[in-house]
């Protein structure tokens, strides 16, 4: 696969200054009121509003994996969801792909609600994750055909589509190869083919380069970038900043379930006066953690003062 020197980003109309309000003490962006102007060839595909997901936890009582996250994503765009391990990226993307149900909040994909219209949502998306493997005892062709049929494609259109896909992704040589015998790169190609066989408008990649070597990862990024060119809305989660720099048009930084910052790379760089995305990322994370610690200290002090007052 040819590797271009610059994978590049599509120029996006710069949205007006966000009126983003800060939450009470923790400086978290509120994206509720942001309405970017959209070029005529761009449609809004994904709306996430106050999305929350919590789980019962033996030690903590309740663990909040996602805390009122809101963002939008558009066609012909790659939206990067950046965050360290455990930030909530996978949870968010699993909700968007209807694998999980949100505890509260809402998410819509191409006009369909993930909670109430999951079947319709799944037809609109292709989902590739480091957790989505391929079947060891199926060939590449069988695997893609299987999912094509599940997506409701008829035999002949499916065959034509698959011939085209296999050609474009250079998979003809592994057509009859069983999954168990494939290399990691081959498996990744099959995963992508499986996810796009039904030509969905939205594609979700959850840490898709995890575990891949440099060459395979680069090839994957190339493929993802090409999808934008076909008008797709792509959400790409990663914890590797360089990948986000290469292909993402806009990014959202997520940490401990909260969306800390969002915008184009230029916007974020200007706002935080940090040219290096990785440094910017660290700064956001550390600032947030520091504020969290301060808030906990304040709460502890308040409780202690209250106790003293009551004892008097």
């Amino acid at each position, binding site marked *: 696969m040819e590797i271009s020197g610059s994978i590049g980003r599509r120029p996006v109309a710069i949205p007006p200054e966000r009126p983003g309000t800060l939450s009470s003490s923790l400086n978290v962006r509120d994206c509720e009121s942001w309405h970017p102007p959209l070029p005529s060839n761009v449609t809004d595909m994904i709306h996430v509003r106050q999305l929350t997901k919590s789980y019962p936890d033996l*030690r903590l009582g309740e663990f909040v994996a996602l805390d009122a996250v809101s963002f939008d994503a558009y066609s012909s765009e790659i939206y990067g969801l950046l965050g360290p391990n455990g930030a909530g990226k996978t949870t968010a993307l699993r909700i968007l792909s209807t694998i999980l149900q949100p505890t509260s909040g809402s998410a819509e994909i191409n006009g369909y609600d993930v909670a109430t219209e999951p079947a319709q949502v799944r037809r609109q*998306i292709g989902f590739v994750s480091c957790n989505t493997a391929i*079947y060891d*005892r199926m060939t590449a062709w069988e695997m893609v055909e299987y999912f094509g*049929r599940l997506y409701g494609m008829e035999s002949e259109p499916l065959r034509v589509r698959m011939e085209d896909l296999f050609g474009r992704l250079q998979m003809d040589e592994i057509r009859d190869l069983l999954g168990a015998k494939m290399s990691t790169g081959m498996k990744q190609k099959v995963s992508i083919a499986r996810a796009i066989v039904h030509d969905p408008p939205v594609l979700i990649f959850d840490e898709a380069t995890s575990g891949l070597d440099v060459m395979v990862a680069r090839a994957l990024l190339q493929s993802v970038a090409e999808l934008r060119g076909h008008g797709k809305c792509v959400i790409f989660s990663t914890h590797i900043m360089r990948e986000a720099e290469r292909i993402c048009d806009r990014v959202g930084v997520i940490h401990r379930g909260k969306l800390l910052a969002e915008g184009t790379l230029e916007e974020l760089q200007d706002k935080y006066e940090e040219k290096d995305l990785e440094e910017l990322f660290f700064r956001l994370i550390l600032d947030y953690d520091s504020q969290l610690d301060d808030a906990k200290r304040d709460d502890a002090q308040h409780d202690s003062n209250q106790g003293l007052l009551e004892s008097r």
Partner: protein
Amino acid sequence: MNWRNVRLILAREIRDQLRDRRTLFMIVVLPLLLYPLLGMSLFQVTNFMREHAAKVLVIGGEQITTDPPLIVKGKINPKLFASPKAAKLIDMDSFSHLAPEAPAESPADRLQRQILGGQTELELGDYEVAVYFPSDFAEKLAAGEDPSPQVFHNTSQEKSQIASRRMMSVLIRWKQLLVEEKLRANKLPITTTRPFVIEQKDVASEEHRGSALWSKLLPFVLIIWALTGAFYPAVDLCAGEKERGTLETLLSSPAQRSEIVLGKLATIMLFSIATAALNLGSLAVTGTLIATNLPEAASQLNLGPPPLSAMAWMLLALLPLSAFFSALCLALAALARSTKEGQYYLMPLMFLAMPLAMLPMAPGVELSLGTSLIPVTGVMLVLRELLQGNYADALRYTAPTLLVTLTCMALAIRWAVAQFHSETVLFGEAERLDLMLRLKRMVTHRGLTPTVAAAFMCAILILIVRFFMVLMMPRPSNFGDFFLLQAITLIVFVAGPALLMTALLTRSARRTLLLRRPRWEAIPIAAVLAMALHPVATALLLVVKKIYPMPDGTVLSEELKTLFADAEMWQVVLLLAVLPAICEELAFRGFILSGLRHLGSKWGAIVISSIFFGITHLMLQQSVTAAILGMVIGYMAVQTGSLLPCMVYHVVHNALMFVMMQLADDGDLTWLLGEGKIEDLDYPLWFTAIGAVIAIAIMRWLHGLPVELSPEESRQAAIDKSAHAPLG
């Protein structure tokens, strides 16, 4: 439901399983090899046993000079064998008695010393059986005394048992000939010692005789292989998919969860049926070959070729059974995160199924209404009757058996679908089992009412303690002792755990134990309901007793009558009605029901608490009735929000049972129950019908009461409402 997706998933899973060598081995290769190999081994062993000459040691036999003799020219007298062929099956070594002072040089001498020394554990060495004739054998025999020869064999060895049987038949024939000779010598007819011969005639047809063993074996094989055949595919299709990471891929496809479950279920069912059918087929073919080629062995086992119709019945019974087992395996395997873990979850299922499968093979277990209602066992018994040609009996109980099996199947499928909708089951991370932390959290983070886990803990604790108390309690000799024992059991071991756990694990005893004042009319209505349901309850008990007859309780009932003879009525009512009402309601409709309501289903909580309530009664007949009535009381607790009407119901119900029985014994109810001795309260139908009508009216009234739902019940109701709402 998109059946196309179900078919797609089914086709894919089948293709995937068929490409798995392990699956192919289990389903195809193993049955094709197993039974022929077993058959060949049996053939070899039987031949060996048939042809192998038993090594016999005889001590002191040559000195016996009777007519006919035992030993002739160093061999056993040929006249003592049924045929010349039988004579070749004994290889005898004969030794004389050892002189008292002579050294024991040979194994026979050593054995003789051991016998004379009175040792019980002897070493037969290379011999399979030893026969010892005392030195005074001939003298005692001539004098008409019992000379007491001894035969030594080792029952832990098959060869020794066979040798012993062969030698015994020789000795018995020899004894018979000696007797006949003595009779002839005394000019008495030979038939003196045998005045008549009993002739036994087998009325079973050839076909029935041949199918007797198959009728027990084939259903057992069917059950075991249907379950085993579901086992491995279920683990691979659920836990294996999770482990390989392909489950998430499938869940993100347009296939709905129920479609995925049905597709996988159909796959597992198919392999379960294939495994069972191939095993049955292989067993049938091997059995036919053995029956044909080993007629002697076959006739000893009453083994004929398996009836062809048997296969048809087996395959028919296989369908619902496979569905049931497959759904259970699928639901259990969904809990596991890996193949290894999946096997751990499924092993208990095997342990549960084995006793149910082996029960029909126990002597005395026959097909009846009671046994036909037991899952798995009922199916086996019906199949047994079919295989034995008892079509009328089988047909009579096919309906209840089918009903139970289909109900179990439906519940198992429902559970499997629920598992695939549960995020905790599909994506839950492995947690260290930290029991102390869980218990600590139960206390430190207690809610107003107990958790589901606490409710189960309480119920299981009560069951276990009650079970052991029943075993350990001494038999009371008077009413006072009986009263004390029963009171301790109820207060300490039923109410006690519930009250203690309420104090430790909840913040509101009032809400947990439903200690609220109910609507004023609920109290008298509860009493009326108990009276109205009394004839229904007694009718129910009679039906249960008919299905599951009670063991002969005459001794027990006499003992109880003796104990109660000196008791006052108020004491009996206090013991049998008031105390149980208070203690059992606090436990089952108080603590346990409150905790179970966090499951999110009011009726689920009522049913589970009632099942536990029923089990504590320990006797099957009472348990079934108590469980059913427990649901009525549980419903009353939920609808009224108070325990008081439940206690009133319980008191009236229990008191009525005793009082009415007493009145019947005294002859005061002849206008209702008729003349004659009253064993049970068998009310006339019109009386029961009136009671039922009143009870239904009261239940309708209860249904109309406003109910306070638990948070989980409210949430579930909201989900159900949105799921059924019309699409906009």
